[in-house]
């Protein structure tokens, strides 16, 4: 029976596009990872504190991107409140450190959990809506949170911003970017590993199923709404962790940097890297994080260039930088 059916259904005439070659891909991926790990280890011995500050910042962006990747890339839900959860993470861990004197691993976990919990609640409300309504509802929530950050003076310092005291672990105090670097690297790596595990697991499969077809997902026994809310909560958890990573090496936070612009910056990174792939999210964070740092001196150019990048990518490389390069190389290899 089985042999017969293979014969009955002829292969397509041309070679099948999209046929992955697992062997070679694993090899390049492994090599890239090894290279990346080596670079992360030697970096602090080679460079100045400023470069390490940039490295820390990029690692924070990586975690932010991974969070957005889970909800937009894996689950296909267009959420626009990432900066709000990031802010909740920063304030939570800052306050836990400032007021309660908690050691930073604990305050970090608390930041993730608080952001995640708020995310679950907002997700449960916002996910009653589809597509653009979800985008608009989360956009509204993000703006409202920024207002809260600006006006809840007693907690956030309001428009004066908040001084964050150094992260502590026992008698150890993190005072410089160089001291924060190992912490930030380890947390970022943990979050990357966590993302890979989630993505490959049953949960990750159910996310992608929801993204590709919610009716089919339902028919496969996946409770679609619960999957969406879970992804939303997880994404907020990531943003909260990213916020607390930021708090380990920063001394000051102002609500101005927690608005829609930051959400769009992270979105840009994920989209430019390539929606739906972890490599894309990480790569996008690095490439775009560097670009935005170079452009920091000239904010007007920065905006024009962000905008143009978004537009041009949507026009000619909607699947992101890495897919674009891969396609290009594939086309060149075929001649």
């Amino acid at each position, binding site marked *: 029976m089985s042999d017969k059916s293979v014969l009955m259904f002829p292969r397509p005439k041309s070679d099948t596009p999209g046929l992955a070659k697992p062997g070679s891909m694993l090899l390049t991926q492994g090599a890239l990872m090894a290279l990346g790990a080596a670079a992360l280890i030697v970096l602090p011995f080679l460079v100045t504190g400023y470069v390490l500050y940039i490295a820390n910042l990029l690692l924070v962006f990586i975690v932010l991107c991974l969070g957005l990747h889970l909800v937009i890339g894996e689950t296909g839900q267009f959420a626009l409140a990432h900066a709000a959860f990031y802010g909740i993470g920063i304030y939570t861990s800052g306050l836990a450190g400032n007021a309660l004197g908690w050691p930073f691993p604990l305050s970090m976990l608390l930041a993730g959990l608080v952001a995640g919990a708020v995310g679950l609640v907002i997700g449960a409300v916002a996910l009653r809506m589809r597509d653009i309504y979800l985008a608009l509802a989360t956009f*509204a929530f993000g703006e409202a949170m920024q*207002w809260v950050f600006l006006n809840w003076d007693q907690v956030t310092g309001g428009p004066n911003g908040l001084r964050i005291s150094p992260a502590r672990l026992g008698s150890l105090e993190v005072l410089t970017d160089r001291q924060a670097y190992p912490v930030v690297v380890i947390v970022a790596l943990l979050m990357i590993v966590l993302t890979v595990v989630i993505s490959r697991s049953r949960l990750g499969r159910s996310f992608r199923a929801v993204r590709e077809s919610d009716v089919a997902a339902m028919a496969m026994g996946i409770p679609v709404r619960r999957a969406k809310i879970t992804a939303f909560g997880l994404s907020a958890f990531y943003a909260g962790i990213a916020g607390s990573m930021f708090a380990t090496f920063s001394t000051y936070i102002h609500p101005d940097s927690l608005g829609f612009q930051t959400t769009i910056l992270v979105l840009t990174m994920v989209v430019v890297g390539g929606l739906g792939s972890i490599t894309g999210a990480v790569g996008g964070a690095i490439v775009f994080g560097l670009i935005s740092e170079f452009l920091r001196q000239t904010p007007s150019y920065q905006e024009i260039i962000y905008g143009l990048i978004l537009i041009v990518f*949507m026009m000619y490389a909607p699947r992101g930088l890495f897919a674009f390069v891969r396609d290009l190389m594939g086309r060149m290899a075929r001649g």
Partner: protein
Amino acid sequence: MTIDVVFLFLQQGVASGLVIGSVYALIALAIVVIFKTSEVPNFSQGEMVMAAGYIALYLLVFRSMPLWIVMPATILAAYAGAALFRRLVLNQVARANGSPVNLVIATLGLSYVLRGFVRQTGFGDTPRSFPPVIEPQSIMIGQAAVTTLDLVILTTAVLVMAAFFWMFKYTKIGRAMRAVGMNPKAAQLVGVDLTRIHMIVWGLSGGISAIAALLISPKVLMTADMGSIVTMGFAAAIVGGFTSLPGAVVGGFLIGIIENFVGLFISSRAIVLAPFVAIMLVLVIRPQGLFGGRVEIKKV
């Protein structure tokens, strides 16, 4: 708060709310007409308003052109810019992938380009004020104080909306727009050129944005960030149902009045929050908005 004060605030809130609400209604109209015909929430609508405001400012102040030239020139420029964006950029985005999310991201891109461009020219550095079209004089309506400028704004906005609705309802091109919104396939089958209609819709939306800019600019300080006024437009559109044009207008007036009530009765600091709370409330309580139709069952 005595009863008299409450009455006074109510009157003042409604009067001021209708004036500013008429501008929100125009912006909401511009958003909804695009969404209805192409399912794209245009996140660059606010920057279209902002850019149009600066074009007018440039022509009026730096080129010293008379108002009767500046106004049509601004509207025309916004019309052309928006139509070209649809034709040159969004058509290509749709061809490359076609998912609405990609179109939305492209409009976000445009919003950044426009804002950056205005900053780059140097206009955006300092807040500027637009010379008033007419000398504002105070007028009392009941116990509410409004200015002649307010009345001009309200009248113009209402006239523009009336013209728009007339066009949408009775002209051939308006009918074609409605047809595309209801059933693009059937529209193509009777010979409607979708590309052309999409361009015109975007152009119109840009033109309306320009009118909103001309009306609002004398009342606010202009900065490169003034596009954030679009939040009010989105709030109005959502309250009205996002696919309903009359809904957008009613939503605009409602948001204007709510905003003034919040300012008068609660605190001026809370004004900024009003639209977001309105958006969230509507989305939670009645996701289809006040005028939105029922959500159809997806066919499987």
